[in-house]
């Protein structure tokens, strides 16, 4: 199990790490859009992270919670079969298999992940200012 949550930096940091994983999968998916391969098994399938909430001190009484990536799974989308006998990877019947990455889907995911990342960063910035002022309590 992952380490315990102590403060806001742990909460936001781990959530940002989760979003980073999501952005990485989006980048991999877009990089592999329309990539062809010789067999249906070898064709690229889009990757998706599975998020899970981590509750500090149990689900019922948790005062703090953050996001963990439980797993990265391949989507169960069959690759598209295309007849292209001229392709060097084509099989005996002249078929190649194209990865079914929906670029629009990926763009939406990318935007959402980057917004979540920014929101977490904004929380850290705000609370850091509050902490700094608290440290300087009584001086002004």
């Amino acid at each position, binding site marked *: 199990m992952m380490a315990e949550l102590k*403060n*806001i930096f742990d*909460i*936001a940091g*781990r*959530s940002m790490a989760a*979003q980073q994983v*999501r952005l990485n999968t989006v980048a991999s998916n877009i990089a592999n859009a329309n990539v062809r391969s010789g067999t249906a098994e070898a064709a690229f399938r889009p990757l998706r992270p599975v*998020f*899970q*909430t981590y509750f500090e001190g149990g689900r*019922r*009484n*948790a*005062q*703090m*919670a*953050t*996001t963990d990536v439980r797993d990265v799974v391949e989507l169960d989308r069959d690759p598209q079969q295309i007849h292209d006998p001229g392709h060097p990877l084509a099989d005996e019947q002249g078929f190649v298999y194209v990865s079914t990455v929906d670029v629009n889907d990926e763009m939406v995911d990318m935007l*959402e*992940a980057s917004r*979540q990342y920014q*929101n*977490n960063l904004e*929380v850290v910035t*705000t*609370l850091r200012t*509050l902490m700094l*002022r*608290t440290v300087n*309590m*009584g001086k*002004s």
Partner: protein
Amino acid sequence: MNALKDHISFQASTLVLREKRNNLLASNIANAATPNYKARDMDFDREMARQNGESPVRMSSARHVDGLASIGTSGVKYRQPLNPSFDGNTVEMAVEQMEFSENSLRYMTTLTFLNKRISGLMTAIRGE
């Protein structure tokens, strides 16, 4: 010594409670994209009253809900969502952001009051 402590203890305990609430709201924002996560919050007035030994508003039934539904015994409650979402997540970014900015502003306000109290004490000690 106790007189000095009492002078600032109200603001100090408020600050602690505000920080707790900030952690809750930050957790909500951190989990805005997690399926089935239920947004959490605390009833600040009620917690404040409980901390100061005042009895909270009594309800005719323990199962009555006052905008937030109880989870455990620590005063943490579930937020009632305005719009249900497809993946079972009840974090509404606009709500969380407004609550968060209000809470941090109130934290800042309490801190300012605390600073004024401390500088008031300093003036009294120096006798200027």
